[in-house]
């Protein structure tokens, strides 16, 4: 077992890191200050990245994407984690794998335009009354003629102000509970779709998080994504790869970048006549961060390799979600400590990283929800979950 990167993986990672450092990092402070990324700047980034084949690298080549394996995509996502959410979205695309459920005319209508970057997509599952308990949503779609009628509301929908269409979860069979939920492709310009307030957040400045209202929205038959009743299953399964990349891998990348800065500070900052890195209490924070980041990355690669091998990776993805986001939280917290007052000051980006890090433990299923899922799986399957000899 050799975990070193191949030549092409190294080149890809080096190019992405260079793109991020040269083109994206210089924009971060402006976005933070202005709360938005200017549309013409966003357009320019998109065009540059697209020309290099860096947009929608997760989508298979037959649909116009980069066709990366899951492992390679996680290496890319880790690099994405070194910049901010909005800059990643515009430069590299958040083209959700659930769109691969598109068939027939859906491919030309939603999947390919999203992969080309002509149409942007958001995922709309959470409702004010249904967060962790995603099966308790009230948004519903009822059969009407050859199509559906959608009613209900969502909130906290990332990038909703910019998006051209939404993947919306809705109850289609109220008697079937969690198995009665389906996913729909809903264009924002449909009659009855209202984009509500941009809900202000602690971090992730520049990305909108909106309320969505559906008032008797008529949907044609093509709007049902995948099979009816499988919506929650897709959220665990195809959206699982999104969770692995957009939360797990990006958390690892962010933690790595933050630790780089903390190590630099521990080397340079002198107090009591020596570098603060010579104090054991500072060393402990650094060593713990190094260990935790390496462990999180290996768990991430393990889950990614399992997906590439066609194995059921759902429990592994949950482990990565918990471990990587909690690691990021601890590393960001220690970085503030190592920087002292400068860590809390707005003159340095450490406080911004700290704020941005916080949501990783919350969105895409909280730490508690995934932890409970892991425990349930372990109680059911035993060693298969934690012993390679038992694993299938």
């Amino acid at each position, binding site marked *: 077992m050799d975990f070193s990167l191949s030549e092409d993986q*190294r*080149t890809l990672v080096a*190019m992405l890191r260079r793109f991020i450092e040269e083109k994206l990092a210089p924009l971060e402070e402006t976005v933070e200050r202005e709360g938005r990324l200017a549309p013409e700047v966003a357009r320019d980034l998109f065009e540059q990245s697209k020309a290099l*084949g860096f947009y929608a690298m997760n989508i298979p080549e037959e649909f116009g994407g980069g066709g990366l394996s899951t492992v390679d995509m996680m290496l890319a996502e880790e690099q994405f984690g070194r910049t901010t959410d909005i800059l990643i979205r515009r430069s590299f695309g958040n083209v959700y794998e659930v769109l691969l459920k598109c068939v027939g005319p859906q491919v030309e209508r939603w999947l390919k335009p999203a992969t080309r970057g002509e149409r942007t997509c958001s995922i709309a599952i959470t409702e004010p009354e249904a967060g962790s308990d995603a099966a308790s949503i009230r948004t519903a779609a009822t059969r009407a003629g050859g199509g559906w009628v959608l009613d209900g509301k969502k909130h906290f929908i990332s990038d909703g102000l910019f998006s051209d269409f939404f993947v919306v979860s809705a109850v289609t069979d109220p008697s079937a509970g969690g198995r009665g939920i389906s996913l729909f492709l809903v264009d924002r310009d449909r009659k009855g779709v209202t984009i509500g307030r941009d809900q202000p957040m602690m971090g992730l400045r520049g990305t909108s998080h909106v309320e969505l209202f559906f008032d008797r929205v008529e949907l044609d038959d093509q709007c049902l994504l995948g099979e009816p009743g499988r919506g929650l299953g897709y959220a665990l399964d195809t959206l699982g790869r999104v969770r692995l990349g957009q939360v797990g891998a990006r958390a690892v990348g962010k933690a790595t970048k933050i630790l780089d800065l903390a190590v630099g500070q521990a080397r340079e900052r002198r107090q009591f006549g020596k570098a603060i890195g010579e104090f054991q209490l500072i060393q402990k924070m650094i060593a713990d961060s190094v260990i935790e980041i390496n462990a999180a990355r290996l768990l991430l690669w393990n889950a990614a390799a399992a997906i590439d091998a066609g194995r059921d990776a759902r429990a592994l993805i949950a482990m990565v979600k918990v471990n990587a986001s909690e690691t990021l939280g601890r590393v960001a917290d220690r970085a503030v400590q190592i920087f002292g007052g400068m860590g809390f000051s707005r003159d340095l980006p450490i406080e911004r990283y700290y704020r941005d890090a916080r949501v990783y433990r919350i969105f895409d299923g909280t730490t508690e929800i995934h932890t409970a899922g892991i425990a349930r799986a372990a109680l059911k399957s035993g060693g298969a979950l934690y012993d390679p000899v038992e694993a299938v």
Partner: protein
Amino acid sequence: MKIVVPVKRVVDFNVKVRVKPDGSGIDLQNVKMAMNPFDEIAVEEALRQKEAGKASEVVLVSVGPAQAAETIRTGLAMGADRGILVKVDGPVEPLGVAKVLKAIVAAEQPGLVILGKQAIDDDSNQTGQMLAALLGWPQGTFASKVVIDGASAAVTREVDGGHETIALKLPAIVTADLRLNEPRYASLPNIMKAKKKPIEEKTPADLGVDVAPRLKVIKTGEPPARRAGAKVASVAELVGKLKEAGVI
């Protein structure tokens, strides 16, 4: 016309190098390596010449350990056509590299060899000039602009106090300075294509070249630490101190 571009694997320019405690050299353990930045500029220039229809093929050569194949692969991902790795473990001096390159040039018959003006590890700034001498070819060093026109090339050179443009008869040697161009990003499709591009492996013995070092490194040391300065209250005091130090 073929263009040959030699590329060297060096310590990444971001790395703060440390001298080994026994002074025998630089500590390269756990240190990130990358293509010499001036060689990246050379690769970029060759690719631009090819894209402008002035060259038909760009061939990369690296003299170094097995891992130097990675450096070649980086250049192939930028768009070069193929690579040659001349495998040598241990240090090779500029003269050794120049002799290897002379043998490669004899086999490949390029119209132009573009090198970096120097490698950022030892900063020798010798290989291009030595190669030109060994081949008896004209050379345009520290190039900030290269215009190929038929059988000759106009090379603008960065010299003290300005620019100088010289005309070289091809085949010729050019060494790239910082302002020649800005190297491109390797695109995802090119990174994937690079995997399939050939890298031929050779040894100096295959080429009949002896690369044994001719120089002996006696000691490597850290640059002296800067000492704290002194403040002076007046110009008179400053002049006094400078006289005291014997500098004026």
